[in-house]
């Protein structure tokens, strides 16, 4: 085991490009040029784990070793940011609660069925947040509700299923929500578990958004949340994923992106809807709707 004062292997600009291209081809994640240092740091433990001397050897391992599929997953795992927390981007969530949910309640009143997809759900906070908002609205009790959380990383999904969270996940959650929807984990030193009735609405699965056909596993949904995921993709990959979302959304269904993301230059398949507190995207209805989006 390398001592900590031993210099870590350095990543040459060439290794960086080769590894970056490999990862990009696999899952569309584009590591920015100025992130070479970050890539070096995050992958160094993989070299150590595999007993490899340098990044060139690691690249060859990813290309040729029998375990390359699993290792590519581990590399993507190390490179992706899984940063997430409950009630992230509250303004958008307020728009969802105040304006979209009443609309969805009316629209789906006949079927009493509602489907959400949290695409790139990380450790599950976003999917559970949606379920909590649905519960808190009191509009959908007795409905057939499913929130699908999917992510490329298997490890985050394990955590999502466990549904136990520590303080870093709770940093934005309103206290009353926390009180209502969580129970303490026994012997878990302050950790909290999502309450059973919320969990009953949420299911998780592994899915690479860029793998052709992978999204077949997800049914038609009313709302897609894909927040802070596509920021790591290049435009071509974003377009590809947006086509998937378009297919999966029912006509009139909504697409919610992170607040720094937009569809400029990417897709004309969605219309921008101005809500009172936020902007969201919508798959247009086949017949021009009467409302222009502005109430």
């Amino acid at each position, binding site marked *: *085991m390398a001592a*900590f004062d031993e210099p870590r292997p350095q990543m040459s*600009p*060439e290794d960086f*490009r*080769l590894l970056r291209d490999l990862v990009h081809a696999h899952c569309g994640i584009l590591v920015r040029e*100025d*992130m070479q*240092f*970050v890539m070096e*740091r995050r992958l160094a*433990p993989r070299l*150590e*784990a595999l007993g490899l001397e340098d990044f060139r050897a690691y690249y*060859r391992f990813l*290309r*040729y*070793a*029998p375990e390359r599929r699993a290792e590519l997953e581990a590399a993507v795992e190390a490179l992706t*940011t*899984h*940063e997430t927390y409950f009630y992230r981007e509250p303004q958008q969530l307020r728009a969802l609660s105040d304006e979209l949910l009443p609309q969805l309640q009316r629209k789906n009143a006949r079927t009493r069925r509602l489907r959400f997809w949290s695409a790139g759900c990380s*450790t599950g906070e976003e999917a559970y947040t949606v379920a909590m908002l649905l519960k808190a609205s009191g509009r959908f009790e007795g409905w057939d509700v499913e929130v699908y959380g999917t992510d490329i990383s298997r*490890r*985050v999904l394990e*955590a999502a299923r*466990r549904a*136990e969270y*520590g*303080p*870093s996940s709770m940093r934005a959650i309103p206290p009353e929500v926390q009180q209502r929807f969580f129970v303490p984990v026994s*012997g*878990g*030193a302050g*950790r909290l578990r999502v309450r059973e009735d919320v969990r009953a609405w949420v299911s998780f699965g592994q899915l690479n958004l860029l793998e052709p056909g992978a999204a077949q596993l997800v049914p038609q949904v009313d709302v897609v949340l894909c927040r802070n995921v596509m920021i790591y993709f290049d435009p071509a990959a974003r377009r590809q994923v947006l086509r998937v979302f378009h297919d999966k959304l029912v006509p009139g269904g909504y697409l919610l992106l992170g607040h720094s993301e937009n569809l*400029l*230059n990417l897709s*004309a398949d969605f*219309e*921008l809807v*101005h809500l009172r507190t936020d902007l969201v995207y919508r798959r247009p209805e086949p017949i021009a709707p009467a409302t*222009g*989006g*502005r109430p």
Partner: protein
Amino acid sequence: MSAQAEELRYQALQQLDPAARGALEALLAGLHDESWRVRRIAAEGFARLAAPERAVAPLVAVLGERGETGARNAAAEALVRLGERALPGLRGLLAHADPDQRKFAADILGQLGSARAAPDLVRALADPDLNVRVSVAEALGGVGARDEATAGALRPLLSSPEALLRLAALESLTRLGLPPPLGVVAPLLEDGRLRASAYRALGFVEEPGALPLLARGLASASRAVREAALEALGAQARRVPPAQRGALEASVRGALEGDPQVSARLTEALETGELSVRAGALAAAAALKDPALALPVARAGLEERLAGEVAHALRQLGPEACDALASHLVALPPPARAAVGEVLVEVASPACIGAVRGLLSETEPGVRELAVRALGRSRSLEALPLLLALLSDPDLGAGAGRALQGLSAGLQVPVREALERAQEREPSPAGLRTLGRVGGSGALPLLRRSARSADPALRAAALEAVAELGADGAAELARYALADEAAAVRRAAVRALGRVGSAQAEALLQRALRDEDGGVRMAAVEAAGECGAQGCVPLLQALVAGEDGGLAWAALAALGRLRALSPALLGAAARHPDAEVVKAALEAGAPYTAEVAVLAQGLLGHARWDVRAAAARTLAQHAGAAAGPALEAALAREPDALVREALTQALGRLGRG
């Protein structure tokens, strides 16, 4: 204005077919739209046109439309997006009769950031109009030409009577990392309007007197000045080699220590400053060594580009700060947690076991791995049972094995004995592998038994462990395991054979080279090279031209070790569709100087950038001056920056740089 009408115009431009007739006109009209969203989408559209260079002249014309501020700004944005294609048009504009237009040209060139514009801008510093000269001086900082011509043109402006000009020149020199000498910067610190900029410039001044001056700025009452000084400190810290870091920190500490507000100010800078300010605040915190800064320092790790600085600062704050942080670890956002964890692992001491044990029950990804690594470095027997219990954990087992190996460095006997006992009770692949690395011959009976286990993962691990121990009988064990029905076991057997090498290894490896499993074949190729199996050479040679890139690459490496390469073989490898094989041919060809130089020349035109770069490096090593013209020709047509660098270096080595 109706939102819907705006949306329609927006969508029309977004969906515009760039090849259609009238596309250019539609975009030009869009630049004049009343909505900024529409203007922006129009500005983005020009680069998609079939012949974007044709848009330059009309865009430049829009810049001249007085009263159309929105359209002019949008046109400027469009020109920036056109990149170097806009250069000729903008050069022309720099000579326009109207100073407004000349200023516009300079601003756009600065944003466009092409070093090719530098000579034009240097000339334009002679413009009769002051505003234009200021814009030009600013733009020179943006085009990134770090050369003497640029520096030589900007430096004299520092003594200009015009404050704006002095400021623009100073900012640009700093941006380019070409600061004036200390003797010039020091007086500028006295000039109120230039002070903050002058402090930033100090970050790049390499003279020893820069640091004490800079330290003074750290204590300034003005926040802008303090932040500039912090930024400069960050730049200095990046530049200084680790060995000299201590001296830098000592002098900074000297300047900061007396100031009662310093910790509060650093906390503020760590939390709210720009990235470069935060980097400087981390360097200052490392110098100050105030443990109260531990948490704000740790939080700065949220920005991963600062992770190295965060780790360094935490190390300086000492083990107590780190132990305290262990209890905060799970409350930190993941990137910050990684930076703290790294240091926690390094400073792990027997005293930290308690905190680390708590982390093992966390479920968040990454935290438990950190805890395992810290235990491995704790030099404490208390860590032993914790690690042994983790050996059969599917996620943590391998890490626990490595941690045990680390622990055994100082505690060999107790670790070995406890590990053997634990594996007797419940063998696990990670545990057996670890036995191979730290165990003694006493472990052999257990390993032999495990090699007959019903679980293929245990069989494979046991085989590798026996070979690792260098035990007698490993070859025999491996031989029989080549008939195992599980590919993973056969792979392990092949690896074991390569390690122990034996009289019969050759024949066995020849058989393994034909195994149905690709992984077994790959392992056999590597093993053949490792144990010097000359009898495998014909089979390996056949693989070099084969379809499978991985096998071809490994075969080349093995043949190199076996000294069984030939120019003909290298030629075949150089035609392989897999770039790794081609590059391996160039590397393995070192003993055949003349032939490999010819190969490399041919590869300067290869479709892949990495092959072209490898060819350039090979030529730098092996070729004589005769390769010069080929390298020069390649440089002239090479679009890729990395390859250009390799070519330039090769030319330099040939004395043609």
